[in-house]
């Protein structure tokens, strides 16, 4: 069965359930199928999709032509379905998907804050992305909201957010952030603890909200690629690739084979850099300085090679609409293959030492367990999902070129603790190193860039890319003169931040840093 046919039984099922829906043609969204649904049936659609075993991927809205359009994307067995509905601008309301999908809870609050869609039956009335920079009657993604906004002279702190309160004798609260102790991104964690044990953790994010969706409007393709490369700096290649792929699909632009190969090499390099660096950071969080320093050393060497080969330590702005910014020097290819083999050997030697240390095992085994049923319910992507039995990787299950001609090894673990996430990441790094060798060996010759050609107004594109944190979904719609009308990047961190709240239950407060690092959600990628 092809991926486009996979949803056919589901569409029949919806018809049988009496839902009014109609399939639409949307060439830029292929292979995803597009289904127009009546607003009243939106909640039932969510329920049916959940019963049929779909994963809820993402939800986003748009203010276009005097209506509010809302989209929800579902996935099953590597096939994607985008459901969309149209609401009037006056007081747009829609039944919530959150009762069927816990993972839809925060994304719907984001849509509510940004676009003013109210979701009936939603379990949480509180704001999410909005703090105090704009009023609750203002919606930044509406057409009549100016990009400059109407901010107060000084934006006050969001001090009256209604956190869950601690009750009972011996229960105390630990507020952490937004400015954290280490050199990391800002966010707020509210712990309730008894002694050392965490009873509850509540996250409050949105501190790094930079208006990415809004300031994308009106950009040209090259400008959007640059912005996408800064949705989350540690994931610049994957986000830029996702944005470019969505734009290229909208424009019907064919990217040269060599450019696709180079994009994949860069994306795998990014995966390796982050996995290797984070293994070190996890070891640092359990006080094992030797491991931290050794992996920091490997990451630094790796990033220097990225700069030598592609001109930038993170390969920022190296993926551009139509291809890659520059070609790879032929002399670098052999060097990079050797480097990949050498890194695999070095990691192996280090892990032989580290695996021998009982105190490391003691800290990571059984810490921060994310039960497989929670990971599935939340739709956790990337290594967080795969360490808890969610066997999904876009590169293998919904492959895009050049992965469609490569075998991608996808490690899966089931115990869901810090150890499982670390193992998953080590195995993924090893698989990526093999992929880099294979990609370099089979790199097609030819140009690395096709001249960009902007599509007509209304053209839309959807892309799915496996970044190092997991599946990135990006939606793009063009307006007049090749300018972007809508850009929505869904970083996989949306799917893993809620998991952190669950996996920290009953752990001790001093284990929070390593538990957090083992998940390593992006604040910037989430806050937009």
């Amino acid at each position, binding site marked *: 069965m092809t991926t486009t046919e996979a949803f056919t039984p589901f569409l029949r099922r919806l018809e049988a359930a009496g839902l009014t829906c109609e399939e639409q043609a949307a060439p830029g969204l292929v292979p995803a199928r597009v289904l127009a649904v009546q607003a009243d049936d939106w909640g039932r659609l969510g329920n049916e999709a959940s019963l049929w075993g779909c994963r809820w991927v993402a939800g986003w809205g748009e203010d276009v032509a005097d209506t509010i359009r809302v989209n929800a994307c579902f996935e099953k067995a590597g096939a994607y379905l985008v459901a969309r509905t149209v609401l009037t601008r006056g007081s747009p309301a829609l039944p919530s998907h959150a009762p069927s999908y816990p993972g839809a809870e925060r994304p719907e609050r984001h849509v509510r804050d940004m676009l003013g869609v109210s979701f009936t039956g939603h379990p949480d009335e509180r704001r999410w992305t909005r*703090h*105090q*920079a704009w009023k609750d009657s203002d919606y*930044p993604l509406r057409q009549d*909201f*100016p*990009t*400059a*906004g*109407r*901010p107060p002279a*000084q*934006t*006050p*702190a*969001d001090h009256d957010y209604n956190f869950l309160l601690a009750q009972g004798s011996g229960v105390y609260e630990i507020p952490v952030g*937004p*400015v954290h*102790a*280490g*050199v*990391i*991104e*800002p966010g707020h964690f509210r712990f309730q603890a008894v002694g050392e044990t965490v009873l509850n953790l509540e996250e409050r994010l*949105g*501190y*790094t*909200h*930079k*208006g*990415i969706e*809004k*300031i994308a409007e009106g950009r040209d393709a090259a400008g959007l690629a640059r*912005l996408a490369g*800064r*949705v*989350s*700096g*540690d994931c*610049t290649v994957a986000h830029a690739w996702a944005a470019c792929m969505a734009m290229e699909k909208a424009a019907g632009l064919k990217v040269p084979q060599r450019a696709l190969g180079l994009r994949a090499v860069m994306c795998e390099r990014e995966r390796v850099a982050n996995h290797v*660096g984070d293994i070190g950071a996890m070891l640092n969080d359990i006080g094992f300085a*030797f491991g931290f*320093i*050794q992996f*920091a*050393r490997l*990451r*630094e060497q790796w990033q220097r090679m990225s700069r030598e080969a592609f001109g930038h*330590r*993170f390969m*920022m702005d190296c993926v551009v609409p139509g291809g890659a910014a520059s070609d790879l020097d032929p002399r670098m290819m052999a060097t990079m293959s050797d480097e990949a083999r050498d890194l695999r050997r070095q990691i192996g*030697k*280090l892990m*032989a*030492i580290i695996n*021998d240390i009982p105190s490391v095992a003691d800290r990571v085994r059984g810490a921060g367990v994310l039960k497989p049923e929670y990971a599935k319910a939340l739709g956790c992507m990337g290594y967080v999902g795969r360490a808890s039995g969610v066997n999904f990787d876009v590169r293998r299950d919904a492959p895009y070129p050049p992965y469609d001609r490569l075998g991608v090894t996808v490690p899966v673990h089931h115990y869901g603790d810090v150890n499982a996430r670390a193992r998953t990441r080590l195995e993924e790094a090893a698989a990526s190193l093999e992929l880099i060798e294979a990609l370099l060996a089979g790199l097609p010759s030819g140009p690395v860039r096709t001249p960009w050609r902007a599509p007509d107004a209304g053209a839309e594109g959807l892309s799915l890319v496996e970044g190092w944190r997991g599946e990135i979904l990006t939606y793009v719609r063009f307006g007049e003169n090749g300018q972007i009308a809508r850009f929505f990047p869904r970083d996989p961190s949306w799917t893993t931040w809620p998991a952190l709240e669950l996996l920290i239950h009953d752990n001790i407060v001093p284990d929070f840093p390593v538990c957090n690092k083992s998940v390593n959600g*992006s*604040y*910037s990628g989430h*806050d937009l």
Partner: protein
Amino acid sequence: MLRIFGKIQRIGIISEPVPRRDEPGLTELGEQLKTHIGERFSGSLAIRAVDAGSCNGCEIEIIALNNPYYGIERFGVHFVASPRHADMLLVTGPVSRHMEAALRRTYDATPEPRLVIAVGACGADGGEFGTSYASCGAVSNVIPVDAVIRGCPPTPFDLMRGILEAIGKKI
């Protein structure tokens, strides 16, 4: 344990002499830094890094300053957890409006004399994000800034040089 020692011995010291890349020579600058830190900060400069809304690219490079290649601690520079212990704020941006109050409070909590360095293209002038309903743009739009380190993101060497130069300039 023996294997750890073995590994450490085999790798040896990989910290690099600060290379002469630009004028004035960085080696001299490094020596000056040590002198300045010695005189003005009693031998140790404490930095509080504040992410005021960055894409996290700058943070990765700031963290790299502590890896064994750069080893910025050898110049007497270390990162601290509280602004109350800090001589210098290293602020990445753009300053999101949601971080504005937190940044002001961090600045107020830092004892005088304090140095503020705006880091990265976004910290310098708002960069790719500019000023909007959600972003205050440059760090200097929110708190007084003594020096700027540009780059997207600045490399660890850029950061090191910028920190050294900022200290040399002050007072």
